[in-house]
């Protein structure tokens, strides 16, 4: 696996070294990441349910999104910072981990889904903001968003179980795993 120099540089940085050696840093950063990620999902879930017309279309979509998305973005920023610190500590390992790469792809998909919604579907919001069923494009965006974010979190958890283990065992060697 070719590791770009930048990945190695990140792993060799002082900040990364601090993350690896400080006893309390990693658990705190990880907990912040869980809190932030859970909040991102929870808030997006409320907005996505409203896009799906659930629990009802009484409350205007624009109000629901105003109420939730400030928290979504704040939590996302925290998740990125915490995630960046965790990544830095073991950049080479994460870079080579399939589940990590898939998670990054999923995040990009979430962004594309959001951009399409904001750029196209949202333009007509005045027509479907409240009291009427949401248009198909809005429902698709909501359903896709929920699916993608569930996938992000499942992949993220899977990273913890696979990082550092994606190597091929040499043919004639017996590995003895003691956990």
């Amino acid at each position, binding site marked *: 696996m070719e590791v770009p120099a930048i990945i190695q540089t990140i792993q060799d940085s002082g900040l990364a070294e601090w993350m690896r050696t400080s006893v309390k840093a990693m658990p705190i950063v990880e907990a912040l990441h869980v809190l932030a990620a*859970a909040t991102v999902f929870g808030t997006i879930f409320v907005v996505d349910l409203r896009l799906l017309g659930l629990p009802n279309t009484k409350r205007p979509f624009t109000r629901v999104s105003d109420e939730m998305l400030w928290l979504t973005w704040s939590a996302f920023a925290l998740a990125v910072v915490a995630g960046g610190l965790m990544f830095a500590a073991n950049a080479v390992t994460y870079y080579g981990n399939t589940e990590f790469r898939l998670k990054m792809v999923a995040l990009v998909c979430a962004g594309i889904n959001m951009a399409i919604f904001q750029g196209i579907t949202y333009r007509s919001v005045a027509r479907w903001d409240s009291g009427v069923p949401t248009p198909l494009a809005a429902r698709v965006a909501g359903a896709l968003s929920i699916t993608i974010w569930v996938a992000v*979190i499942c992949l993220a958890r899977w990273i913890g179980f696979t990082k550092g283990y994606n190597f091929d065992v040499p043919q004639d060697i017996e590995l003895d795993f003691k956990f």
Partner: protein
Amino acid sequence: MAAFAEWLQATPVSVTIQSVKWIVPLLQAIHILTIGIVFVSSVMIALRVLGKMRADEPFAVVWGRFAPWLWGGIVVMLVSGLTLVVGEPIREFNSLSFWIKMALVVVGVLSTGVMGRTLRPAGTTVGTEFSPGAKTSAIALIVLWIFIIFLGRAIAYDTEVWGSWSLHPPT
């Protein structure tokens, strides 16, 4: 307690949870997704108590919107959490964070129940201003959930977090 944990870890259910590769990650993912639902529902209710969100709706309506998800989420978390414990009882029972977390979960669940009981009847009209006590309690509950989230992560770091207070058997 230790003997019970050892017995439990050797049962077929526990061994299955430990050995089927995808069970623990899936349970943890479900646990984290429902943290999102429970935490955000609780935050929304707290923000309403503080008058900062959906102030145009009576508290009872906001409670009605988010409380079912909060309670449903708590049930899912108890089931997924219990299954995770059954899968690794020794690790959990040897973690001080785990026991503190369980105690705080009981406090959180009871507090949520009390909040619903006391505030919902009082908050049936728009414009009800809640007492400083109610507002403080709402914030305290959010802080409690955050502590619980941190303790959940700390289960895996018992000696790093608690030092000599850790319940890990001395090596």
